[in-house]
């Protein structure tokens, strides 16, 4: 299986003249990159930049697959799976309808049994799969976010505080998803809880006004 690499080159992000981080460079192809730092240090912003959902003030993010031509914008979009606390899915749709919609609108097939398997893998009961997401508890929503992040089997998985709101079983489910993703590619994980980082291959600690790697 070809290796996909996500590389940050000299990233800098400033908001209203305040520099959040600068000179941030790293590269990860396989294994876990832990992103730590106190609240407001820029973890969420960094992960959104990696996921292509925000632009850096300077520097760039490369996503490349070994031996393959440059990824198109659409391919790149799906090559980096992302979930974060501000990710919301459609409350009026069920979990199955949400996943089916995103697969179809992204131009990928949406086999019913595959979608059910994905939801079961994050611990959603069969009965819950057909219920509107607006009726979900915080933990169920978090499980659905993980299913969304892994919906396209991305070689790079970017997870921002993935354990928030989860019970012990839910945490185990996410740990299993992270372990599987580490096997096939790179995982970038940001958290305030050190217990979420299980033997990371790399680590970045953000300090808000600068960087310590």
């Amino acid at each position: 299986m070809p290796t996909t690499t996500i590389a940050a080159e000299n990233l800098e992000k400033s908001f209203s003249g305040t520099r959040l981080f600068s000179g941030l460079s790293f590269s990860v192809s396989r294994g876990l990159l832990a992103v730590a730092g106190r609240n407001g240090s820029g973890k969420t912003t960094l992960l959104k930049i990696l996921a292509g959902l925000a632009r850096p003030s300077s520097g760039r993010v490369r996503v490349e697959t070994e031996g393959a031509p440059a990824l198109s914008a659409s391919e790149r979009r799906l090559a980096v799976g992302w979930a974060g606390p501000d990710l919301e899915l459609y409350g009026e749709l069920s979990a199955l309808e949400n996943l089916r919609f995103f697969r179809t609108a992204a131009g990928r097939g949406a086999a019913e049994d595959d979608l059910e398997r994905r939801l079961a893998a994050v611990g959603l009961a069969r009965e819950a799969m057909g219920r509107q997401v607006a009726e979900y508890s915080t933990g169920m929503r978090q499980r659905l976010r993980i299913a969304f992040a892994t919906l396209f089997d991305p070689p790079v998985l970017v997870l921002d505080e993935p354990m928030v709101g989860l019970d012990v079983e839910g945490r185990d489910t996410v740990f299993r998803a992270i372990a599987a993703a580490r096997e096939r590619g790179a995982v970038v994980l940001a958290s305030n809880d050190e217990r979420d980082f299980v033997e990371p291959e790399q680590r970045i600690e953000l300090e808000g006004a600068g960087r310590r790697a």
Partner: protein
Amino acid sequence: MSGLSRAWAVCAKDATQELRRKVAMVAVFFFAATALTLVSFAIGPFGLPAADRPALEAALLWIILFFAAATGLPRAFVAEEEAGTGLALRKTVPAAVVLAGKTLFNFVLFLAMAAVTIPGFLILLDWKVGSPLAVAATMVAGGYGLAVVSTFLSALVARAGQRNVLFVLIAFPLILPLLLTAISATIEATAGGFPLTALRVLVAYDGAATCGAYMLASVAWED
């Protein structure tokens, strides 16, 4: 999977959401019904000399359609941002596909609104239409233009503060030529003629608006 079927998926998703929560639909239809009732009370079937009727009726019809549409159509992208679902959409679906799907949904919403408003207009104002086919063609061409411009502007202002004010400020100069042409076409159609020139202008406007929106979709929605 073709771009059209992907856009259709976005349209179907919006329609499913709308049928379940009924926000835009209720706002649009209630505004249209209220405006129609007020106009019929103010002018009524006999309140105007016959010679003045076509121009005023055409203008009133488009004013009702435009303002009713303005209560629902701009929600296309704004609703995504307000619900926090914009990130998931941007992460997985190209902006042009989202724009096409949402334009399609807004166009269908406009046609549904017109299909309810026009019979009411015919009855309450005793509107005499010389060429129903020309009126229908004007509704389709004008409605599509309104849908594509409103949807694009919705993407543009979705993440801005004061988005409602911003929408109106930007929409006014862009939609005014469309409305004036649509009113002119409706006057001619009411009198029994076929407004070929005005329809050509509307189709050209629709084409230009579609091309512009498609080319700028990514800038408006993703940046």
